[in-house]
């Protein structure tokens, strides 16, 4: 069993923690758009109802702010990554006191590996105190809220993809009260038909369109459709998501997340992004991934590269672009993988986009020398799929890139909130 703990509107929550004046106030966190204007990277629910949504930028944003100026006060903050980073660390450390095997996934998200644990024994200080998944999730939620001041949603399910979807459901449907337990098939199917595929993490807008073309619109349809059909229509990545949705766990040989400057606003750490610097990150990933392949004595059959423009916390502003190439024959050669990966990057790269992260996936892992299956007849017995080589196994690397546009808006440094938790001179003053 896995749990995913997700804090929505994380930047907004962090700012509000030390700024009571921003609670229930329409406000946006905006950074430089690179052309002298602003771009919204996060906005409070109140601002979103005024159509000030993440991703809005430049003249369009200026016009909207001007037209709203006489109607409602909109506060604008620069992103304070020092603050967000510190609160994120507190979030992870608090979680680690409540549960074992905490893996940070993003600045506002973590997963717990609950395999081999009886839920009764999850809290070492109060054995027997937690009797069910729901109570466990509730306890996590309450403790995080009291200790860090951040509200979080908890999803529990047999696979990471499902747990991620469960945490989304916990937020989306009020009846869960913040904790969604999707550990049984029955619980999953009860809500799957209410979740469009585009809301599943990892399914891009483009992939959702392709799925819609073969009449797959909801999570339920994705989890029950023949896997071969999904693969033909979209990609091996989506097929893997579908497999995980149907409750089979895909093995990740190594999920290696390298963080680069993602929570830092120190000027010296921020370099303008160039094609060269992104390619460097990719070369590093390929080197590590092919070493991993060699250790496993495996080959791979497909290489996927994807670029993302915004963190998970800002789904609305996120543009994910991914491409997959099949190798002509299974390979473990760093040079071959490098060549393909670079080709993919070149086709994905846009000069004017600013990227947040790059991800490399090697799929279709096979022990060396073993012939590749002729892939997946639809009639395959699902229980056999567990032992089947192919998309169940993957090597994944994700690297966060430094973000030139995250520089606090140069002209309005005063918009930056103080470093409440990291500088003595900036701690809140109380009277």
């Amino acid at each position, binding site marked *: 069993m896995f749990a995913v703990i997700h804090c929505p509107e994380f930047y907004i929550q962090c700012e509000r923690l030390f700024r*009571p*004046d921003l*609670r229930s106030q329409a406000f946006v966190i905006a950074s430089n758009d690179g052309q002298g204007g602003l771009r919204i990277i996060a906005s409070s629910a109140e601002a979103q109802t005024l159509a000030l949504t993440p991703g809005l930028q430049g003249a369009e944003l200026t016009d909207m702010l001007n037209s709203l100026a006489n109607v409602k006060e909109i506060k604008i903050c620069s992103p304070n990554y020092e603050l967000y980073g510190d609160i994120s*660390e*507190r*979030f992870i*450390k*608090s979680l680690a*006191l409540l549960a074992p095997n905490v893996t940070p996934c993003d600045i506002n998200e973590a997963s717990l590996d609950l395999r081999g644990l009886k839920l009764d024994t999850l809290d070492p200080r109060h054995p027997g105190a937690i009797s069910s998944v729901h109570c466990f999730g509730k306890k996590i939620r309450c*403790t995080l809220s*009291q*200790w*860090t*001041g951040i509200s979080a949603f908890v999803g529990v399910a047999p696979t990471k993809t499902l747990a991620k979807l469960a945490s989304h459901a916990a937020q989306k449907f009020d009846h869960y009260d913040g904790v969604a337990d999707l550990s049984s098939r029955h619980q999953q199917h009860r809500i799957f038909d209410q979740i469009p595929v585009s809301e599943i993490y990892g399914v891009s807008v483009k992939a959702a369109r392709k799925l819609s073309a073969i009449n797959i619109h909801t999570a339920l349809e994705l989890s029950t459709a023949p896997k071969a059909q999904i693969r033909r229509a979209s990609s091996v990545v989506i097929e893997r998501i579908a497999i995980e949705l149907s409750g089979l766990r895909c093995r990740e040989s190594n999920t290696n997340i390298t963080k680069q400057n993602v929570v830092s606003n120190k000027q010296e750490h921020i370099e303008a992004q160039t094609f060269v610097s992104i390619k460097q990150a990719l070369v590093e990933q390929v080197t590590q991934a092919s070493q991993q392949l060699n250790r496993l004595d495996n080959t791979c059959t497909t290489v996927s590269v994807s670029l993302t423009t915004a963190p998970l916390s800002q789904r609305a502003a996120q543009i994910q672009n991914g491409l997959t190439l099949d190798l002509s024959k299974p390979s473990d050669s760093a040079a071959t993988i490098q060549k393909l990966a670079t080709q993919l990057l070149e086709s994905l790269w846009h000069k004017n986009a600013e990227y947040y992260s790059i991800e490399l996936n090697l799929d279709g892992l096979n022990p060396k020398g073993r012939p590749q299956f002729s892939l997946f007849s639809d009639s395959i017995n699902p229980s056999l799929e567990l032992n089947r080589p192919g998309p169940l196994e993957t090597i994944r690397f994700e690297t966060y890139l430094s973000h030139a546009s995250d520089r606090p808006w140069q002209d309005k440094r005063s918009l930056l909130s103080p470093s*409440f*938790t990291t500088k*003595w001179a900036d*701690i*809140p*003053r*109380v*009277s």
Partner: protein
Amino acid sequence: MNMMTANMMAARHDFGESEETLDLNELCIQHPSATYFVRASDDSMVDAGIHCDDVLVVDRSITARNSDIVIASVDHSFTVKKLELSPQLRLLPMNQGNSDFKPRHIEDDTAFEVFGVVTYVIHATR
């Protein structure tokens, strides 16, 4: 080995293995991930030993009880006061010498939230 190092080692041996140096964090901070610092900006709590410019250690993991000294947000700003839960919700200043500081009733429609409980006061004597 020079003479000085030899002497120091001998001295250490005489006094037994030295423990780690005392750490003030260990004394003042029980829950690091739930602890924040704030600074007092007036003398409204001077009878509680909180002077202007003192640093207060605030633990959010503790649930506030009656008579605790708390950091609370009232009407969009932070304040440090003594919490009175009954007979009615009030925030009390602690400065008998200055009647300018008055108790504050928290009405139902007041935006009020306890941020955390003050557990230690760090006061510079000069």
